């Protein structure tokens, strides 16, 4: 632990679980997730029933626990929560996650207020209530009811536990990992604002994703996001993009302004990168974790097939990237190294039978002139695409510029994609998706170059 007050949540040495210990109940599932995740610290189930669960001794109350406890995770019914918090406070526990629901989300504001007051009295910090818990996969710490995340470099902060859970399930399928996962639920004490600050300092986190439905302290949120975004990319998935016509307004401007446009303006102010959904988020965060940022917006597309290259170029252009033609000197230097039928424009079309040599030569050459490259390979079963992957890896490795690939498709490129993965080159299903990622990386470059933002407040 590095001594941050919130470290008790993310890297505790001993965790207590107050809740049911019956299989299928949340309390039990939390313990099972910890056990199956190979948590190395102490696990203390608490339930008046006593006995054993999953090989751990069950203690009758918080007061009966041995030794120092860093974190308590509570999934008790309402009436038992406060008592358990009081006991935790008396034991010197300073961190609590309350999974239980039935608070402000159903209009029970009073119960939530009492919960916060009780925690404050003991100096306990709270995550929740009405949340799905948190995870630190690097510490094999999984006090959550969701699918255990793989270790990675992206932190996911989510208001909605269910949406966060769905993202984790999709991530698992894709092999995408997380540095932290936090479902903060009703954010009665610690919410997006405090957690953004924590994650900005977290060395394992390279990108912070905020999955949000709304904000409740807008300007404060923006300030927290801005100071985080100066250190690492902050990506937002904002649910509810529809233009709400609900703004009561007397002016033209008022009736014209959609909620969504205001969010976009706010995100821009804070240097937040907005994405539309989980898929885009995975694409972008994978690139953030492994790619250098482009210095400018000039993108070369190298392909062995016209159609997919043009689709990528169109997408890139529509997203504001520059897909200008190569300079005459670049064309001259490429000519002798490529097939006589190659098209030396942008996309650079190497033609179908190009292999290791052509790809390596073309990529190396375009990277001397462009800020980034998208490499597309439409594989044919009779040609070995692993050679092409090697060519790309070698050429990409010679310069610190982003190179994204789209090797198509399926079984015939499986080995090639494996090599790209190993070399930490991001491979996506289409060139268009590569173009999207590059447009966001370019946006990130601009955020960092922007002269100090006009101050917020």
């Amino acid at each position: 632990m590095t001594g941050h007050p919130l470290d008790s949540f993310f890297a505790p040495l001993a965790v207590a679980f107050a809740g049911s210990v019956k299989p299928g109940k949340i309390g039990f599932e939390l313990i099972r997730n910890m056990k199956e995740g190979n948590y190395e610290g102490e696990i203390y189930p608490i339930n008046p029933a006593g006995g054993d669960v999953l090989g751990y001794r069950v203690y009758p109350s918080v007061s009966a626990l041995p030794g120092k406890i860093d974190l308590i995770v509570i999934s008790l019914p309402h009436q038992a929560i406060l008592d358990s918090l009081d006991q935790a406070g008396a034991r010197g526990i300073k961190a609590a996650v309350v999974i239980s629901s039935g608070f402000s989300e159903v209009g029970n504001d009073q119960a939530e207020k009492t919960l916060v007051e009780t925690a404050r009295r003991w100096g306990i910090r709270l995550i929740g209530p009405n949340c799905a818990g948190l995870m630190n996969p690097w510490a094999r710490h999984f006090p959550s009811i969701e699918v255990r995340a793989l270790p990675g470099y992206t932190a996911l902060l989510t208001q909605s536990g269910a949406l966060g859970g769905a993202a984790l399930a999709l991530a698992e399928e894709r092999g995408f990992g997380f540095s932290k996962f936090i479902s903060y639920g009703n954010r009665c004490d610690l919410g997006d604002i405090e957690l953004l600050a924590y994650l900005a300092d977290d060395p394992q986190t390279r990108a912070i994703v905020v999955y949000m439905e709304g904000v409740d302290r807008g300007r404060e949120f923006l300030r927290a996001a801005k100071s985080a975004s100066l250190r690492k990319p902050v990506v937002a998935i904002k649910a509810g993009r529809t233009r709400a016509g609900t703004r009561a307004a007397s002016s033209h401007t008022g009736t014209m302004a959609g909620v969504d446009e205001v969010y976009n303006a706010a995100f821009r102010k804070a240097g937040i990168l907005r994405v539309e959904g989980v898929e885009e988020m995975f694409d972008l965060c994978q690139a953030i974790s492994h790619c250098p940022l482009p210095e400018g917006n000039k993108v070369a597309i190298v392909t062995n097939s016209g159609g997919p290259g043009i689709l990528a170029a169109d997408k890139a252009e529509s997203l504001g990237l520059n897909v200008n033609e190569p300079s005459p000197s670049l064309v001259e230097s490429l000519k002798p190294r490529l097939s006589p039928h190659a098209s030396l424009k942008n996309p650079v079309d190497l033609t179908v039978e190009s292999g290791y040599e052509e790809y390596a030569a073309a990529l190396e050459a375009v990277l001397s002139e462009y800020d980034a490259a998208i490499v597309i390979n439409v594989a044919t079963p009779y040609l070995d695409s692993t050679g092409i992957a090697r060519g790309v890896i070698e050429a990409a490795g010679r310069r610190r510029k982003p190179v994204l690939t789209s090797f198509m498709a399926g079984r015939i490129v499986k080995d090639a994609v494996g090599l790209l993965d190993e070399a930490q080159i991001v491979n996506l299903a289409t060139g268009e998706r590569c173009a999207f990622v590059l447009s966001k990386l370019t946006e990130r470059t601009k955020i960092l170059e922007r002269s100090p933002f006009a101050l917020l407040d």
Partner: protein
Amino acid sequence: MHCSIEKARREHRHLLEPEVLSLLRDYGLRVPPHKVVREEPEALDAARAMGWPVVMKIVSPEILHKTEAGGVILDIQNEKHLRDAFSRLSSLRDQGKRVEGFIIYPFQKHQVELSVGLIRDAQFGPVITFGLGGIWIEVFRDLAFGLAPLSPEEAEEMLESIRGRALLRGFRKQPPADRQSLTELLVRVSRMAEKEEAIQEMDLNPVFPLDQGYFIADARIIL
């Protein structure tokens, strides 16, 4: 708080156009020359001094949307037109509307009509808009949004982010817009939005881009 806002709030009404203009001027915006008159001879004097053609609008705390209420007469070419206009606007007074007077501006026409707006978002505070104006605002909804306070750089990005940005570069013999004064306009509006928290909404529409400066042809503020 600006004194005109304080006064309007005390009287539970929105700002009158002359008050809006003085507020804007105090925040460093360029406002067109104008004169508030009550009687016809005064109106004639004002128009002669300004030079023809002129615009005449009603000044009434009870009329927020002046054009819809028939309270705006554009392109008044001469004294006869002005007398007609005066009697038409006076008839609104005779219909029982409270009328503080009539405001006279020089009449300007421009092919490019822009708008600058302000709304106050419950979460994020003042938001400034910039885009096409006039009647096109409803049709094209070509607006850029920026959170106050705006830096000149952010304001410039807003200018550049509307679909109709080519209109600002000059087209068909129109000179290019004075971008610097337009960005200055946005920056100053954003400062005003931060200082004057009582302002809930504002429309400057239309705003004509000139080769030097700009011309705010109509301004409305909602408290």
